[in-house]
């Protein structure tokens, strides 16, 4: 067995995937394995007992939204008694930012990989302020969720169907040339997304006031496109999962307590449940006024799918405008990307960086290279408040625990008889 050629197969699949955003639908109708007693969440598996503040808040909000609980005590009872089960989004072809909690009645984006045929899903971005993904579950949060479900989701579905689907890879590639890195900065991609959808929203909304509200919601939210971008990443990652002998990371994800990775050659296809975990780090970064690092939650969210498929922190050189998050200079942004080349198998054939003479982004994290060089992946991330419901308090840089990569390497060695 040749590991390098297995890894080439993995990254080829990852890079050749072509996720098309085709519409929205209700979770219970489309997400495989979804049942009414199930909630999906970000990161590797978690229990109520070990869940962080934002995760508990989001679970509570989702159960109130589903009409199954009225407060956190009730939510805790349901989960601890096993009446409500928790699964990682990743086990169901799904990803969600921050807490990533996705419940049976929620609207989700539906993507289809035109090359490999797999589908992927992500919930709809709520915008800023008090939002479920940061663990807020007040009435205004739930009202917002209902509007996303009943109004915005339906308009988007009509618009996306009307336009015959949206090629997410092309959109992501274009945004990298407009100063986005695809994780912390999605300003350009969100504008491109709005621009593509606008005429179809105008046509498919029931009335002009609804169209205006939907356009406003998308236009005000520089993260509007984050969720479809993440779902596109998930479609690419799942296409790359399960290559015999490959040491490439297909997924990195955080639940606020544990950081988990999955490796293509360990375990089976996208629904496989093998994770290698370690304690989450606390991001270093800039905080909004009145907040400090003390207030920060442990690292959380599935948005690290972006780094897993070669953008986000790995494409930092493309986004010099946001290096201030880590009080760096534009040359530090270039160095950040150059450093990631050291642990990646290849350079992306579609995602390129003008500042590096259009070199492809570092793609396909090789656990061997991570362990050998001691360089862990660089992750750009938002920072959640440690208490449920407060929301985002900053943004910065975090690295996964090396132990997860070492454990994965040893498990690989055992599985393939290298010991």
């Amino acid at each position, binding site marked *: 067995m040749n590991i*390098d050629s297995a890894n080439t197969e993995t990254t080829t699949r990852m890079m050749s995937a072509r996720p098309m955003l085709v519409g929205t639908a209700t979770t219970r109708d489309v997400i495989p394995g979804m049942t009414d007693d199930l909630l999906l969440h970000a990161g590797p598996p978690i229990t109520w007992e070990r869940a962080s503040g934002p995760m508990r808040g989001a679970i509570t909000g989702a159960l109130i939204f589903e009409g199954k609980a009225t407060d956190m005590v009730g939510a805790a009872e349901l989960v601890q008694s096993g009446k409500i089960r928790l699964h990682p989004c990743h086990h169901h072809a799904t990803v969600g930012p921050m807490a990533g909690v996705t419940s049976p009645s929620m609207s989700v984006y539906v993507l289809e990989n035109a090359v490999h045929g797999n589908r992927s899903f992500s919930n709809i971005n709520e915008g800023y302020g008090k939002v479920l993904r940061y663990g807020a579950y007040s009435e205004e949060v739930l009202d917002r969720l209902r509007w996303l479900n009943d109004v915005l989701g339906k308009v988007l579905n009509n618009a996306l169907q009307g336009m015959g689907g949206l090629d997410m890879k092309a959109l992501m590639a274009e945004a990298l040339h407009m100063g986005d890195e695809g994780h912390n900065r999605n300003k350009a991609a969100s504008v491109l997304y709005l621009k593509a959808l606008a005429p179809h929203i105008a046509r498919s909304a029931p009335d002009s006031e609804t169209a205006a509200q939907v356009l406003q919601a998308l236009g005000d939210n520089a993260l509007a496109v984050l969720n479809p971008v993440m779902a596109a990443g998930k479609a690419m990652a799942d296409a790359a999962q399960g290559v015999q002998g490959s040491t490439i990371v297909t997924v990195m994800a955080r639940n606020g307590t544990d950081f988990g990775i999955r490796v293509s050659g360990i375990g089976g296809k996208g629904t496989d449940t093998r994770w290698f975990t370690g304690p989450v780090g606390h991001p270093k970064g800039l905080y909004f006024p009145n907040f400090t690092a003390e207030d920060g939650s442990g690292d959380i969210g599935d948005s690290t799918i972006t780094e897993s498929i070669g953008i986000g922190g790995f494409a930092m050189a493309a986004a010099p405008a946001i290096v201030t998050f880590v009080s760096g200079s534009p*040359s530090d942004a*270039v160095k950040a990307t150059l450093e990631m080349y*050291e642990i990646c198998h290849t350079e992306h054939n579609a995602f390129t960086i003008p500042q*590096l003479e259009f070199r492809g982004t570092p793609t396909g994290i090789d656990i061997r290279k991570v362990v050998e060089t*001691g360089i862990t992946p660089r992750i750009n991330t938002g920072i959640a408040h440690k208490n449920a419901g407060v929301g985002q308090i900053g943004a910065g840089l975090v690295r996964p625990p090396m132990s997860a990569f*070492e454990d994965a390497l040893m498990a690989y060695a055992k599985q393939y008889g290298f010991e």
Partner: protein
Amino acid sequence: MPIQTQLRHGAYYDSVVLMQLQAALSQLSGVQNVGVMMGTPANKALLAQSGLLTPEAESAAPDDLIISVLGKNADDSQNALAQVDSLLMKRSTGTEGDYLPQSLPAAAKALPSAQWVLVSVPGRYAADVARDALNMGKHVFLYSDNVSLADEIELKQSATAKGLLVMGPDCGTAIINGVGLGFANRVRRGPIGVVGASGTGLQQVTSRIHQLGSGISHAMGTGGRDLKADVGALTARQALSLLANDPQTQVIVLISKPPAPAVAQELLRLARTIPKPVVVNFIGYQPNESEASDGSVWFARTLDGAAQLAVNLLSSATPAVTIPAPAHARYLRGLFSGGTLAYEALLILQDYLPSVYSNAPLDKRYQLSNSLVSQEHTIVDLGEDEFTVGRLHPMLDNTLRLHRLAQEAADPQVGLILLDVVLGDGAHPNPASEIAPAIEKAKETARADGRDLPVVVVVCGTDEDPQNMAEQIALLEAAGAQVFSNNETAIRHVGECVQKLGGLGLANVQNNLDQPFAALNVGLESFAQSLQTQSAAVQHLNWRPPAGGNDKLMALLRKMKG
């Protein structure tokens, strides 16, 4: 006054850069206080408080940069000011330029022209780095010591298979294409190539050659263990081969502490195949008489002697010899009637050919599997018992030999035939009368096949022998044979001819020495700085022990390469 001030007009620097410059200057020896500031009134007041406001600084305008240094004495201050530019340069931020790669692939991406990797990391990590470099197709200068013998052998075998050089481990010195690696003296470029298993030996010889007015094409280190029997001079053989093919090199010097005898013999054989003078200084090695008298290898007793001899030989050396490609018909077949003559032939041919098969070989590995059929280079003693059962000795009866001669002549792989003719009382009364026509016929057979087939005959006899030696020789020569009356001379002549037929048997190594030197440097930063000083392209790595030095993970990673 030990305070010295430098003004830079209209120079703008980021305040962080100025703070870093101030810190760097303060750390220089003999510096007591430093002020690095723009010439605003407030800043001048600050300088005045610390006694650094010289009249010159006082005169500065707000957009002038003031650098004031208080040294223990004026020289210290002057010295510090002289370093401002290089310190500023060091701290200037670029884009890709100041990213130090950590892994060899990333470094190779930054400097794609690098043909060499300089390795000076701690010994326990060095073999892995060298292995990675070889897998990337790079030559290795392995300065690190404490590399195990097993690793050295494995690295060199792998390098040889790939046509790459591993100089070292524990190689302190080399000069490649005018660029000194590790510890090297500055010597002019010239026509003498040096191969050395000893670092200071190499330095002494190259320095002496420079002092004597000549210069160095390339000087290659092998590491001290290369010439031991276990390693078998893999690097030295490659280095000699490179110099043999290098058009700039006219004379070669080989220096080493006394090698293992078998290795010495092997190296001398290779040296003799090179059509350039080779000066050998195996410190303390006593060449035997025939070696010492040899015209292609010269023995020197001391390092200085080697340098002098090399320089003296330059006048007689022929420049730029091209090496012939191996001929298809390249094997020697010797058909002897005299047992001791055959035995001596085998002995002498060791100096020229790595292996000669025989029905009575010196080394059992080269036993002919069937005495009636030759293999590669073969010397057959037809006087052996196996041939004389029920038949007269070949000194009396030529039948068997003439039959074998025809058989060899028909073999398209045969490039030279060697025969002996023993005269004297008791021997055949007129051997040439039978052998000469057979030689003529053999040459004709070969010619019909499009080959030239030289035949060498050694005649053992005197002018008083009953067969008439002069007449015998004349008959053989008329048949086209080259005739010698001294076995050793004949055999040495044959050895040289056969070497030429076979190409030189040089070691496999890529020759990219004449490309501009470019290297990746893993380990001591001073090696990278030294290369920069010599204007050679170098990419230094920010190397760290793999897997944080965890032995278990390192072992796993080693198995999981590729």
